[in-house]
């Protein structure tokens, strides 16, 4: 091949490199620039803005002296917001409470979610082909429901007097909790009862996603491996433990990561079911961000909490990638 064949005629090297004719460049850039602008204005700029605000004592109620309302009555305080998180102030205590609640919620949701979805996926996968679609649709239904509607519905389910759960508990002759969502002195295995209630509602709403992912992954496991295990005398439990779970490891990584990230970001279900109560036992970091930013106008403080939440999500994701990574495929 000659150099001329690679470069083409003089003035046309770009055609060879991109595969586009000159007239097509305008179309490509014309299509891409609006998307860049959209992402820039509605995604990139807000993210940069959050980072900037976290270094200011900023409130939208006050007009600043500098550009974009910064400076003057919205002063630069460096790492002041982050240092304050380690203090003894009420704001710092609320932040730490919210952080612990968020971590507790995310970990428990992950455990409960996996404990339900993985065995359930195996069960659904084992039924007749015609029934699989039915079960998948039933279990996936809650995930397409509005979070507000789900929260309101579970609020009724947990109602102290008319609620389904308390009435079922009474029906079997036990004493139900005085209140699932508002009693600060009620705990289950050391976890506030209100938190337990929110976890139940959230897992109910969310587990369909993981179920569908697990079912898809199970269908991808080669039949030959299972057959070989059967020939070697593996029981159902041994097959699940020695074959299914190890081969699902990449899927587990995906599911764990997605579940943790979405759990860290939950807001609606907390806000509607408990408003963070009782006594801040279900106050999450997202609620803390919302309350400070939009109710008390402490946008700088709220931005710094947002960055901490981002760091938490990043850290947990990296740890999960490290622990669950695989260097093989089938």
């Amino acid at each position, binding site marked *: 091949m000659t150099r001329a064949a690679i470069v083409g005629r003089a003035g046309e090297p770009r055609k060879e490199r991109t595969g586009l004719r000159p007239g097509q*460049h305008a179309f490509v*850039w014309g299509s891409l*620039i609006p998307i*860049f*602008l959209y992402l*820039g*204005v509605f995604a*990139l*700029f807000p993210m940069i*803005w959050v980072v900037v605000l976290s270094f200011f*004592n900023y*409130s*939208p*109620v*006050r*007009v600043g002296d500098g*550009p*974009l*309302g910064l400076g003057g*009555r*919205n*002063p630069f305080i460096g790492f002041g917001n982050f240092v304050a998180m380690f203090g003894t*102030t*009420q*704001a710092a205590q609320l932040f730490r409470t919210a952080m612990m609640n968020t971590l507790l919620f995310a970990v428990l949701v992950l455990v409960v979610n996996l404990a339900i979805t993985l065995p359930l996926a195996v069960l659904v996968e084992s039924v007749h082909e015609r029934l699989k679609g039915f079960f998948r649709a039933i279990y996936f239904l809650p995930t397409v429901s509005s979070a507000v509607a789900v929260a309101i519905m579970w609020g009724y389910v947990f109602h*102290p*007097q008319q609620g389904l759960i308390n009435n079922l508990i009474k029906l079997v002759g036990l004493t139900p909790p*005085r*209140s699932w*969502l*508002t*009693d*600060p*002195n009620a705990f289950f295995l050391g976890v506030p009862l209100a938190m337990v209630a929110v976890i139940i509602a959230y897992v109910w709403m969310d587990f369909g996603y993981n179920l569908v992912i697990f079912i898809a992954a199970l269908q991808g496991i080669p039949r030959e491996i299972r057959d070989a295990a059967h020939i070697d005398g593996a029981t159902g439990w041994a097959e699940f433990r020695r074959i299914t779970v190890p081969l699902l490891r990449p899927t587990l990584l995906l599911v764990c990561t997605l579940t943790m990230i979405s759990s860290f970001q939950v807001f609606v279900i907390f806000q509607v079911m*408990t*408003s963070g*109560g*009782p*006594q*801040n036992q279900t106050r999450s970091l997202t609620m803390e961000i919302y309350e400070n930013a*939009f*109710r*008390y*106008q402490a*946008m700088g403080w709220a931005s710094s909490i947002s960055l901490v939440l981002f760091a938490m999500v990043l850290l947990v994701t990296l740890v999960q990638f490290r622990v669950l990574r695989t260097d093989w495929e089938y």
Partner: protein
Amino acid sequence: MQRKLVVLMVVVALLVAACAPGAPAAAPSGEQPATGKITLRLWSHQNTAFIQANEAIIAKFMEQNPDIEVKYEQFAYDQFIQALQTSMQAGTEADVIEMFGTWVCSYAQGGRLAEMPMNIMSYAEAEELFFEAPLNGYYCDGKLYGLPNEFNLEVGGALVNPALFEGKGVPYPPVWSDMDTLREQASRLPEFDGDTMVRAGFNFVGGDGLPFLLLQGILEQGGSYFAEDGVHFNFDTPEAVATIQLLTDMVQKDKVVDPILFNADSNDPWGSFFAGNAAASFIGSWAAGAGRVDYPDLAFDYVNTPPLFGDEYNFAADSGWGKVVSANSRNQEAAWKLVEFMTAEQANALAFNTTTGTIPALKALVENPEALLADAPWVEPTLKLLPHGHYIGDLTDRDKLFYEIIYPAVLQSLQGSMTPEQAAQTIHAQANEMVDAAP
């Protein structure tokens, strides 16, 4: 070269987009089209009775001022605050804003609100017309930033349900001459299903109710919740402890309400009363007006509650809802004309108060209350209390003090998680911390 050009275009476009919200030129408030007709925008929070009242007054204003068109927009309470913050940042807020008086100074000191021109009204003139408590919410650093529509009272009265009183054989209408009588009667009103309270006798566990009761109790015992500098707070006092103790006793000894099941987050005084889950609810008289609109079929009354301590009322009063003008408005003159029309003109102020069931901020309407009482008889119990109300003062951040500091601490005392002493100390420490953290 072409790639660099495109990258440059994207960066420039991003910068322009990023800077645009801060540019004053983007402010669309107060449009004045070529026809010469001025268009004003007015924002308020969503409250059925408030909207009804505002719409009627605006229609009258436009009839009298054909050169001004008023566009009225409402937001749910939480979205209203968010809309204010984001739009003020972008300079796109309405010309006239219905704002709660206790918020006004923080927005005014932040440079977001316009000062009232002297040709509309001076503070001295306003003092002649309005009660001190509501007016002073709009008076910041020696400047007037708006005018109040209401004298907001969250104390001194309660909604009462005749059927539930009579069902329990409790005298109706209740005449609570003192707290002992109220406590005795209220303790006979609750309804239980086993150990679970399904109906409260007297629900006072609200986000506004508990803070206002605490302040009232302190004042009625001759105390003060402000420190000597007038900026910091003093809640670690015998008066504060005694007030929290009284409220705790009403819960734990008299069992007039179960604060686990009835509180601001679940079965609040307003919601529980109109759902039939409270025989009486401690709340401002505005609730009677709103209830009349939202629950026209429910029979109820609004009656006086007694002083918490002693024989004489002494309570703190919020400023209440009123109208302010945005500093960004391009039609200040027309905007102030609308504010004055909606708040200071007696007929309009009366229409607002009777429709919303709120207490007038205008003295004249209380001094000659016949017209007011003809349409809003339930405010009568409250009118005689007004001379005993004092402006609540500069609380630094009223919502934070009420909802994040006082309410949770007092609630914990009611629920038995704290002693009244601990609750008072917690409020004291956190309130002063809030003051110290303010810029």
